[in-house]
């Protein structure tokens, strides 16, 4: 298997985006956030939700991970199997790196927050889980570990959507792009209100509580693992028969 | 070496003849090197195998030979050999066609012979 070269190329593909993202985040944070407040006393600054931003970045990265790569691999005689395995590996690697970097940023943020009353920098994970004892190494390792799987779920989801959209013809693409949001935002609420007496939303609410609102991050972990397993399988089903379209 | 591929015969034969013409005319002297297969095929935009086939005709007839590691060379005595061969082909290539054309145009044997004599004289004068 020519997996090494494939990995090299795929990582290279991600590098640019990652570097731009983190330089931007850090740059913006420092230049428009920290410096004005810290040094010039310019009001308050609250920075949060790093994991959310990174998730969005990773989701978009996943969305763009399919078509261009697929064609390039076809041109260079790489099988879909090798390409897919390569992507899984690189997506995992990116998730790990992003998780570690985010945790570092958040910890640095905490130090800055301590140093200046007017600045509050926090990560979502910290706000959601285990409110006590957030300074230990174990806590941070656990946070990194769980965030990795959250990120993997997100980037794989983007990849899956990209793959399935590639396979679909125009009609199907339109149906999904319009139909799914329409269903979720219009049909479902109406149905729920009229037919199900709000039971659907209750279900969704309970699920979200289960995953995010408890003090226990392991619910999130399990959910992510199950999601990842499902998405990986579905993605392969979609990709293994993908062909070059005329 | 000029080859006009509008001719109808197989390309490798035309390559062989083109080389023969060049040797007869002295463009390629005996014991000098002739272009390589690659050079010939690139120059005339033909498949190297075709060029090789053409050259091999000359090798078989002893007109050219291969010096290992260097290339193809014109053999000593090649010019004589070629003249001999062409003489033998002269009847088929020229005389026969001449007669056919003469018949088509209703030129009698005597008329043809007279023209032939005139031809030699003109050539002689020039």
């Amino acid at each position, binding site marked *: 298997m020519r997996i090494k070269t494939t990995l090299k190329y795929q990582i290279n593909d991600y590098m640019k985006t990652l570097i731009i993202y983190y330089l931007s985040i850090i740059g913006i944070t420092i230049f428009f956030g920290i410096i004005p407040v810290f040094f010039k006393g310019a009001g308050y600054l609250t920075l949060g939700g790093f994991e959310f931003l990174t998730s969005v970045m990773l989701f978009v990265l996943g969305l763009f991970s399919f078509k261009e790569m697929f064609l*390039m691999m076809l041109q260079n005689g790489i099988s879909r199997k090798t390409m897919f395995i390569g992507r899984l590996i690189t997506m995992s690697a990116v998730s790990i790196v992003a998780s570690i970097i985010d945790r570092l940023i958040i910890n640095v943020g905490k130090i800055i927050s301590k140093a200046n009353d007017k600045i509050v920098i926090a990560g979502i994970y910290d706000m959601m889980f285990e409110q006590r004892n957030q300074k230990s190494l174990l806590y941070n390792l656990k946070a990194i570990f769980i965030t990795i799987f959250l990120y993997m779920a997100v980037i794989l989801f983007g990849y899956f959507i990209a793959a399935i959209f590639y396979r679909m013809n125009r009609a199907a693409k339109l149906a999904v792009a319009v139909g799914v949001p329409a269903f979720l935002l219009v049909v479902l609420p109406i149905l729920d209100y009229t037919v199900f007496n709000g039971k659907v939303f209750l279900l969704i609410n309970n699920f979200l509580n289960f995953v995010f609102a408890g003090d226990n991050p392991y619910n999130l972990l399990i959910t992510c693992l199950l999601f990842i397993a499902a998405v990986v399988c579905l993605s392969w089903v979609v990709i293994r028969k993908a062909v070059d379209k005329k | 070496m000029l080859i006009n591929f509008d001719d109808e015969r*197989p390309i490798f034969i035309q390559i062989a003849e083109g080389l023969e013409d060049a040797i007869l005319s002295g463009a390629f002297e005996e014991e000098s090197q002739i272009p390589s297969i690659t050079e010939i095929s690139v120059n005339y*935009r033909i498949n190297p195998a*075709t060029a090789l086939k053409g050259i091999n005709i000359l090798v078989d007839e002893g007109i050219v030979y291969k010096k290992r590691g260097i290339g193809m060379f014109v053999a000593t005595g090649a010019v004589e050999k070629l003249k001999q061969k062409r003489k033998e082909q002269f009847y088929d290539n020229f005389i026969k066609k001449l007669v056919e054309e003469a018949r088509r145009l209703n030129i009698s044997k005597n008329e043809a012979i007279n023209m032939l004599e005139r031809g030699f004289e003109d050539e002689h004068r020039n």
Partner: protein
Amino acid sequence: MSIEIKDVTKNYGTTCALDKVSVTFENNTIYGLLGRNGAGKTTLLNVITNRIFSDAGEVLIDGIPARENDEALRKVYMMSEKNYYPENIKIKDIFRWTGEFYPDFDFEYACSLADAFELHLNKNVKSLSTGYNSIFKAIIALSVNTPYVLLDEPVLGLDANHRDMFYRFLIERYSETQSTFVISTHLIEEISNLIEQIIIIKKGKIIKNESREELMTYGYTVSGKASLVDEYISDKYVIGVDSIGGLKSAYVMGQLPKEKTLEGLEITKIDLQKLFIKLTDN
């Protein structure tokens, strides 16, 4: 050492693009894969290179099944009309990556070709014209040094000068590397002298698979007065006729007769393009 295509069938809905196609591409040969638009040439090449999947049959590259197999596929490089390279990458980076995926890729040679064609290596794929799109892919195909190189319309959009350059480089390269080149094209007359083996595909079926010489020797044109021609061809295998007024030209498959003129008829060689047209006419 060859690419064997065995009974490959490919359907698109009700259309049969390839119908039990069997053909072998031996090593160290230049093939011409000729066919009309939609005959199945590109489909066949795409099946070989794992870009699309056949519905039946298999492709073996040096004995190894090619389908989803990295080891087999690394022996083949295909240059296609469509661009599979990322649009925002520089040409020289594409050369570099090609060298990673195909270790025998000759980077220096590719650069020298780019020079000869005046292709700027710092340009993006996106910024290239149709002609230069073909040129950069052709350069890669000439530099990649895989045992088998498939060229689908390699000179599309190239001006006459560049086409000529391409053929020269192709012959030169072929002499050195002795890879097998399969050229699929419409420009039959231009490549006629280059190819050794001709494969003609018509509506998904292979109708001719012969050496160029065999094909050219066993085909000729008979021209003259219509009635004389008709009489002559009454017992011959004719693949087509052209008529102007009382004159007729018939294209005959058979041994070229010794006599070039018989009884008011003229016998001439048939050129490959004419042969192709008559064989693939409906």
